[in-house]
């Protein structure tokens, strides 16, 4: 068998192709590792059910207040937070596959943003079963179908904003254990907000922290879409909080990417 010389040569692929190639590889892994995703549906469903069971009776006295609708954004945020391909990235770093990718002409930022694009797809897919549970128990959107789409957009933005942190840790440390530990950041962010009880009920230091917590504004925006009708203030505040968080987390992630791909001298 004799090898035939070929005239085919490598060339720059273009940024969109770089992104879609990196994202496509990440998405192909999802059905192969269902245990990495399934808990993200079961855990929020569990918390949703437990909180409803424990606290719904307390809320029944408030006229026009649906605790089921109030709690649904919490379940969504719980489902999508930390849904990132950061573990895949850190494994690539440890295995040396990240170096192999860096030997190709792929743009360095596409190695990160491609994974984040895959995250957005996963996040949107994870929202659907949780929303279906909500619809199944009678939650309805006062803003209609358009409100559902905006709801999904806010959820994706939140997931994306949070996901910058595990990526930054993956690239900075190359440690799978450290990446797992970043999920811990989520708990103070989440529970020091009005995730479980309405903000007017919060008092003292807890209320003060919740006021400065971006999760409070995410949840307020999501809740407004379900039960408050179109409320521009809630949506703008939510968008501003998420954008601020996104800028911070992406800065960390891009800085860490630069450090990882810096060739030194």
């Amino acid at each position, binding site marked *: 068998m004799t090898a035939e*010389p070929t005239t085919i040569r490598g*060339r720059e692929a273009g940024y969109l192709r770089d992104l879609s190639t990196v994202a496509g590889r990440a998405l192909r892994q999802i059905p192969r590792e269902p245990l990495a995703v399934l808990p993200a549906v079961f855990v929020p469903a569990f918390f949703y059910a437990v909180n409803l069971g424990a606290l719904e009776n307390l809320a029944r006295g408030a006229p026009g207040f649906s605790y089921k609708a109030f709690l649904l954004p919490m379940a969504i945020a719980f489902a999508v937070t930390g849904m990132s391909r950061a573990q895949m990235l850190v494994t690539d770093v440890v295995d040396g596959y990240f170096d192999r990718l860096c*030997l190709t002409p792929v743009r360095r930022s596409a190695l990160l943003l491609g994974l984040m694009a895959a995250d957005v797809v996963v996040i949107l897919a994870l929202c659907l079963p949780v929303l279906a549970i909500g619809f199944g128990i009678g939650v309805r959107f006062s803003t209609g179908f358009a409100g559902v789409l905006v709801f999904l957009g806010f959820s994706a933005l939140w997931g994306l904003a949070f996901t910058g942190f595990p990526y930054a840790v993956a690239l900075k440390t190359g440690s799978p254990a450290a990446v797992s530990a970043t999920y811990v950041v989520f708990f103070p962010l989440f529970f020091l907000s009005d995730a479980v009880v309405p903000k007017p009920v919060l008092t003292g230091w807890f209320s003060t922290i919740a006021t400065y917590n971006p999760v409070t504004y995410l949840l307020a925006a999501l809740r407004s879409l379900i039960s408050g009708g179109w409320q521009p203030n809630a949506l703008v505040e939510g968008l501003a909080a998420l954008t601020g968080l996104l800028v911070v987390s992406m800065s960390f992630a891009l800085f860490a990417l630069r450090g990882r791909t810096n*060739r030194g001298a």
Partner: protein
Amino acid sequence: MSGGDNAEEDPVNPEGLAVYTKDLVRRYGTTTAVDGIDLSIPRGEVYGFLGPNGAGKSTLIRVLCTLLRPTAGRVLVAGYDVAERPEEVRLRIGVALQEAALDPRQSGRELLVLQGRLYGLSTSEIRGRLRDVLDLVDIAEAIDRRIATYSGGMKRRLDLAAALVHNPEVLFLDEPTTGLDPESRSHVWAEVRRLNAELGITIFLTTQYLEEADILADRVGIINQGRLIAEGSPDVLKHSMGEDLIVAEVEGDGDGALVALRSLGMVSAASRHGDRIVIATPDGPAAISPVALQLGHFGLEVRSITLRSPTLDDVFRELTGTRIETAAAR
């Protein structure tokens, strides 16, 4: 035989060479891993870079492949400066690093297709290239299996296929057979020879195996402690030691024996390394008896005496005073 003599002056056209380095230095903090290396490797050559672990081979290859920036010096690969135009270099090189850097969760085919996409190849081009490289590296049967199920030899072959998908001008192989069994090793050697002979790809390989450098390389560079200490074809390097070597295992001090051996007309060099005395001679069969007599004359008890051809390890030992395996263990 002198390290990098051929690159003392800039060649007329360094851009026309496959690899060109001038005064290449790479430091990590205060540690100098590569210390002033000059290389001029023409296109189509198989160049073997031989040295013990920690000699600077992997650092050098990572500089040439654009993973590391040189601290000082000029480095051109496929005609482009690795510091100024790394993206142009990446389009023209293929690299198989020391540890086969693969994603075990993908199938072999998925990995190769992904590689082709990142190099801008169209779907039909990728299909054609996969056919070509799978023929070359003989892994077609396993191509749709998850990489996690591959043996070490199969991973190396897939790594090589990934390095070839975009039809590179220069192929870098970092210790391509380290950790492989003898059968897999000879398989890789055959593939390297075919790639060079049939496709004309320039191949730069690092190795700590003397036999590998000897068999595969048109020219060999020997590196020790970050410096290029010798360069030339394996035959030229070995013959610089003399036509034959007489190796005697001895006991005793034997003061003056080396001087006396060197004074024998047929001995071109003699040196002692612990209990071993190595004598280089153009005519081993004729020299072995006088050498043995001379050793006995100086009170040395000869435990064994052998006659053999020089190896690259002898060259390394002559230049550094130690064997490659010993240096690797340090």
